[in-house]
């Protein structure tokens, strides 16, 4: 039986217009204060950046097909620029804003039952900060580019002749403030705009994840801001606190940088985990298992995130005592992460699983995150890390987490909410095919890098010994397969905008508030304040042939919750 559950009435009343048609013209978008439009603008910008970052990834992989030069004209120096740009674009322009700023902006206020985020003007300002940050990063290319790696390690970043370093640092500084203001907005929104009845422990898990992320954004990102500022001054005046010739300390930069950038990894992964909680519960049509544990594990991960930065620096010469402490605390991150994975698996158990595209992405996430998480243990272990540090093993590990988990989670979420955002259904078959292609391509690309890394191939190298070539060739082929999968995704998503079937209000059978408003939502989200129940109780939701979507069945609802049914009948 395809039917399932639910707890809430769906407000599927057809409204005369939606947020896309409410006003029109370029200015109505450029100066919009509507969180949904800002979310869409972020999404378009982030996906364009993803394309650019992806092109650089393919260039890097193609260059590595053979030892020495492969692409004519790509010298070792140019190659350094390529991987730096790939890293910087993917981290600062794509993954960090992808879920909170793009999907979060669109979905969070609706899920919360609010009309908008707390500070709509600040929200638009954050978006333009992102645009300016991106422009500065592009300008750095015109000024001679930057080849420091996305980590900007001193003393190389203060001495490299590449001309675009200051512009790139300024760009990342501005992007940081974009991220801070988004976080600030979300913290206040979650605290102050929850409607009556939406208690903390009734919030959808995606909101818990976004909230935990926002806390990290406002606490950690200012430290990156000051670090980049000090670095800019140092590079401009050739003196500063990271300069050892004057008594400064280059390792201090690493401490500062990772004090932000390790939490930043959780800025990337936490919202993806929130998405997975939604996807798994909705597409398995089963109440999420261990709600409180999943919610609190997000907070636990946020707290741990500030205490583990030193595990990036085991071989930097920091004291053995610090190394041991950082190693220990890093291991403990495994606990909240595993709490989540086991709860998701328990949710799937005996669930009514529908293997549509978002669910396939959620399952991919489970596999890839488990691999990414478990390989983290090798790197948190002091003695194995000495061998694996700065090898392809690290590259593999963080791609499994940052791409295989964070980005795959984002793309799963994009498919999940695509009908809500655009009002159109995409081609489900192509969606599944593309997901499988991406999954295969991803593993061919990065699983291979285990072998490279454990055999000692250092990361970021332009040239390598012939014995590594076979792995590099396989890895590059994998990256082409992945590119194919993403291009297919881009194709059918675009096609759905023009020829896709109109989306029903609730295509998947979700119970949270965003499925209560029409697809696409009206400009003010809800005509009247929605009633808040248990968003993971699907017992009164059933498939409706006529609607081609899910609806609340009053009969089912009466048997499940007579009180609510009586209220809704008014």
């Amino acid at each position, binding site marked *: 039986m395809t039917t399932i559950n639910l707890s809430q009435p769906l407000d599927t009343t057809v409204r005369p217009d939606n947020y896309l048609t409410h006003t029109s013209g370029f200015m109505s978008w450029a100066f919009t204060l509507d969180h949904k439009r800002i979310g869409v603008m972020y999404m378009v910008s982030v996906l364009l950046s993803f394309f650019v970052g992806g092109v650089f990834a393919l260039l890097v992989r193609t260059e590595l097909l053979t030892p020495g030069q492969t692409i004519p004209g790509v010298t070792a120096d140019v190659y350094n620029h390529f991987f730096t740009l790939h890293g910087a674009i993917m981290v600062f322009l794509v993954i960090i804003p992808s879920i909170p700023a793009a999907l979060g902006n669109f979905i969070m206020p609706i899920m919360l039952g609010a009309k908008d985020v707390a500070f709509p003007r600040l929200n638009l300002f954050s978006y333009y900060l992102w645009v300016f940050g991106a422009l500065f990063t592009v300008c750095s290319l015109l000024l001679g580019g930057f080849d420091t790696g996305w980590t900007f390690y001193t003393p190389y970043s203060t001495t490299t002749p590449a001309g675009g370093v200051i512009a790139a640092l300024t760009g990342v500084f501005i992007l940081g403030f974009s991220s801070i203001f988004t976080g600030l907005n979300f913290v*206040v929104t979650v605290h102050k705009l929850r409607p009556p009845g939406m208690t903390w422990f009734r919030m959808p898990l995606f909101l818990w994840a976004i909230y935990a992320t926002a806390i990290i954004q406002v606490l950690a990102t200012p430290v990156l801001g000051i670090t980049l500022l000090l670095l800019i001054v140092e590079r401009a005046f050739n003196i500063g606190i990271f300069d050892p010739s004057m008594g400064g300390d280059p390792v201090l930069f690493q401490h500062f940088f990772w004090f932000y950038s390790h939490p930043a990894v959780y800025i990337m992964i936490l919202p993806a985990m929130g998405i997975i909680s939604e996807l798994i519960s909705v597409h398995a049509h089963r109440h999420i298992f261990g709600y409180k544990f999943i919610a609190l594990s997000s907070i636990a991960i946020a707290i741990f995130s500030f205490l583990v930065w030193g595990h990036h620096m085991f071989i930097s010469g920091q004291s053995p005592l610090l190394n041991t402490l950082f190693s220990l605390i890093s291991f403990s991150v495994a606990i909240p992460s595993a709490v989540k994975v086991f709860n998701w698996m328990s949710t799937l158990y005996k669930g009514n699983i529908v293997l549509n595209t978002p669910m396939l992405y959620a399952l991919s996430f489970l596999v890839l995150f488990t691999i990414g998480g478990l390989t983290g243990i090798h790197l948190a272990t002091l003695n194995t890390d000495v061998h694996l540090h700065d090898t392809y093993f690290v590259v593999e590990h963080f791609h499994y987490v940052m791409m295989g988990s964070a980005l795959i989670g984002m793309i799963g979420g994009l498919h999940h909410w695509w009908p809500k955002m655009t009002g159109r259904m995409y081609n489900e078959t192509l969606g599944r095919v593309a997901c499988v292609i991406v999954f295969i391509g991803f593993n061919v690309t990065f699983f291979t890098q285990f072998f490279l890394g454990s055999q000692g191939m250092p990361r970021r190298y332009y040239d390598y010994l012939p014995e590594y070539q076979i792995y590099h060739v396989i890895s590059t082929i994998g990256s082409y397969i992945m590119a194919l999968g993403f291009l297919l995704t881009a194709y059918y998503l675009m096609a759905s905008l023009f020829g896709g079937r109109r989306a029903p209000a609730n295509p998947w059978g979700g119970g949270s508030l965003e499925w209560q408003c029409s697809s696409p939502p009206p400009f003010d989200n809800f005509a009247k304040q929605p009633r808040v129940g248990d968003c993971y109780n699907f017992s009164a939701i059933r498939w409706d042939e006529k609607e081609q979507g899910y609806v609340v069945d009053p009969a089912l609802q009466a048997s499940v919750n007579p009180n609510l049914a009586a209220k809704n009948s008014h």
Partner: protein
Amino acid sequence: MAIKTQTVVDPFAGAPQRFAAGVLGMWVFLIVIAMLFLGAIMGYLVVRLHPDPAEPFIPKGATGLPGVLVFSTIALMASSYFMRLATQKVRLAQWQHAHAAMSATLVLAMVFLALQIIAWVTLWRNNIHFGDSLYAWTFYVLTGLHALHVLAGFIPLIRAWSKTARRAYSPEHPEGIVYCEMYWHLLGAIWLMLYFTLWLGMRT
């Protein structure tokens, strides 16, 4: 049914909710600024506590922090006091007092900046140049960063000053001046911490 043309959706149910959200937003913003300065101070302490053995952190000729900083500290603290007073008077609807207090805040803020400039000039004349030593670098960068935040604070200060003149606040709606006060006290607190750190850094 007429289609609404309104495009700006008010997310709040009423003014009290908006005010509460604004205050929380300001608190988060203050935490952001505080983290920025905490990072800077940590950086200073690391290079100060682990100096290059070959080169003393405090170069020859440096005789201590410029004495004028004592007066700039007093100016900023007094400015903070008058800011507090201004908010209180707005809540009591005593407009003339509120405006006078805001004027005092603004003048003292200018005095603070002027004294900071005197401190930099004094140091520079004593041959403590920006690029010569980490001691000079950290002093100019840290105090400069703080001064920049004070300078930015003039925007809300002048706004609050002009609004008290126009009686644009009401005892029930003192939002703007309350936010301004929160920011201003934070800058005072950060300056005290910064000054203490720099003073500590001069001890050997």
